[in-house]
């Protein structure tokens, strides 16, 4: 890190701002950034390389583990043919993420609008409650939620199915979405809404036709983050679901693909790549929304 310290340490005085100085500065900057990028992508690279190797190559201690000599898709074939990776885990994860996100974003939009705009008794208490619940970690709630799920099972079959996740994921999504959207709604000018009221729009219609389109980046951001949080969730899924066919990706991979024998690395790493890929692709297309959501959550 000595070089990165130099990047903003040694540069002195404006007198030195010649083209040569500028070039040197940017070289230092980019050279210092490379280790960070390499560090961030290193495990993903290792995962990808291992997933493309044959068993023999992985298990040969004399061959470098850092790159592959030949490329094989046998590990991915194994995942498709011998495991429930695609037909159940992937599908379950998509279903759970879509449903939980949809529920949470709709409920979050309503709550955030009330918090951002409407004046009513208890607005402060509700705001604080949202913030506190936003910070309650899932590790505090997983034990009692088992009881809640068992209770609800008397009315609807949710126990040991992925529907229990659709039910419980909103517990961490709604506070987050509400908190995020509140900030976006506050940026919409009040005057626009007042015009809509004067034209005879009801509250809900104003929200849907005027406020939501203006706060669209926030809504997209909430959907993306909600989807990502669901996709990556691990603890609830691990605790609530034992049925192999109802497991989500992360839990299915961790609990079903790790076996006693030593030959599982290739398919395990393949599963990691395929399980991360949808989120990374989504992220690549909507990076700016992710960044703005990340900073809005912490700064607002």
């Amino acid at each position, binding site marked *: 890190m000595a070089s990165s310290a130099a990047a903003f340490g040694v540069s002195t005085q404006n007198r030195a701002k010649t083209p040569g100085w500028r070039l040197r500065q940017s070289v230092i900057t980019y050279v210092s*950034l490379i280790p960070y*990028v390499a560090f961030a992508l290193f495990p993903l690279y290792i*995962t990808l390389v291992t997933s493309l190797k044959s068993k023999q190559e992985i298990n040969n201690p004399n061959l470098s583990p850092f790159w592959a000599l030949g490329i094989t898709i046998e590990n991915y074939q194994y995942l498709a043919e011998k495991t429930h990776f695609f037909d159940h885990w992937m599908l379950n994860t998509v279903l759970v993420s879509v449903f939980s996100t949809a529920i949470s974003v709709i*409920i979050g939009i309503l709550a955030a609008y009330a918090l951002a705009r409407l004046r*009513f008794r208890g607005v402060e208490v509700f705001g604080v409650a*949202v913030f506190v619940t936003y910070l309650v970690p899932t590790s505090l*709630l997983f*034990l009692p939620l088992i009881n809640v799920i068992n209770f609800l099972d008397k009315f609807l079959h949710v126990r040991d199915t992925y529907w229990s996740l659709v039910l419980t994921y909103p517990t961490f999504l709604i506070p987050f979405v509400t908190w995020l959207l509140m900030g976006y709604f506050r940026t919409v000018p009040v005057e626009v809404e007042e015009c809509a009221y004067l034209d005879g729009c009801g509250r809900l219609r104003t929200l849907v036709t005027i406020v939501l389109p203006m706060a669209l980046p926030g809504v997209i951001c909430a959907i993306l983050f909600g989807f990502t949080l669901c996709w990556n969730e691990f603890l609830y899924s691990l605790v609530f679901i034992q049925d192999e066919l109802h497991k989500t990706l992360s839990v299915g991979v961790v609990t079903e693909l790790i076996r006693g024998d030593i030959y599982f690395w290739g398919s395990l790493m393949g599963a990691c790549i395929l399980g991360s890929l949808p989120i990374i692709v989504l992220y690549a297309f909507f990076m700016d929304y992710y960044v703005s959501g990340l900073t809005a959550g912490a700064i607002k």
Partner: protein
Amino acid sequence: MAISKAQDGVQSSLSLAQPLERSWRKALGPDLDAYGFILPAVIIMTALIVYPFCLALWFSLSDGMLGEQRHWIGLKNFAYILQDRIFIQTLWNTTVFAVSSVVLKSVFGLLLALLLQRAARWKRFFRGAVLVPFVAPTALTTLGWWLIFDPTYSHINWALKHIWPLNLLGLGPFQWLGNEHLALAVCAFVNFWRGLPFFAVTMFAGLVAIPEQIYEAAETDGANAWRKFWHITLPLLRPVLAVVILFSTIFTLGDFNIVYVLTRGGPMNSTHLFATYSFTEGILNHDIGLGAAISLFLFPLLLAVVIIQLRMVRKETSYGI
């Protein structure tokens, strides 16, 4: 209402009813429909957060297996864990894990944010690349680290043995996840890897928000880069830094995935955190009361952090909350 109508007719009934309704309306605020807007959120949060939380409190104060009738035992669960050697170990592990990884994330996050700010070209590429660990599924990326630190397949051990000039050091092979001290360090390291982007990107946003004129003014006064950093960047970044550190501390204290995937709390309980130990006692050993008591131990700490944070946010923004 009926009486007033009978006595004086319409006019007096209005004059009597109006002040009543007005005071009731005044008490609830002008926007009554707000209650309809927050109702779904309130129902879900009550049923799935507040109620379970109370249930967790009850679990921690009672005795009985999962699904059985529970009996009140007061603070016995808490008394038990406080003299439980594994729990004391867990407290220590959590402290080391959280402090070391949050310190690392703060220092390198700030460095990375400063570098990102200076990189004019390929800004999107760099920002995008360093943010990947934060969006990819933690359990799956941690499996990648698991392979890297595996005793037989460890890439680091291989590099220490085969790659010049590392092989000249004569180090290794290390039992990364089998050694009591190394295992916790590895867990904290992976947490650092995952959390670094959050720090960097958030602080980067904070850096961009600092007005350029302040730096220009300092430059005309002859300030060098270090002075600008110490007297402008750092003080103006402090609120953002504080919020990010508090957020990260909370999520690091509640971490489960990384430790579960890498070590499941072992070897010799040297990597147990609140969440993994609570999982072990509550789910694997079926002692739900003990599990709840362990996870609730985090709550006072959490509350303190939330209060500090709310105070800070209040101070900095004109509106409530």
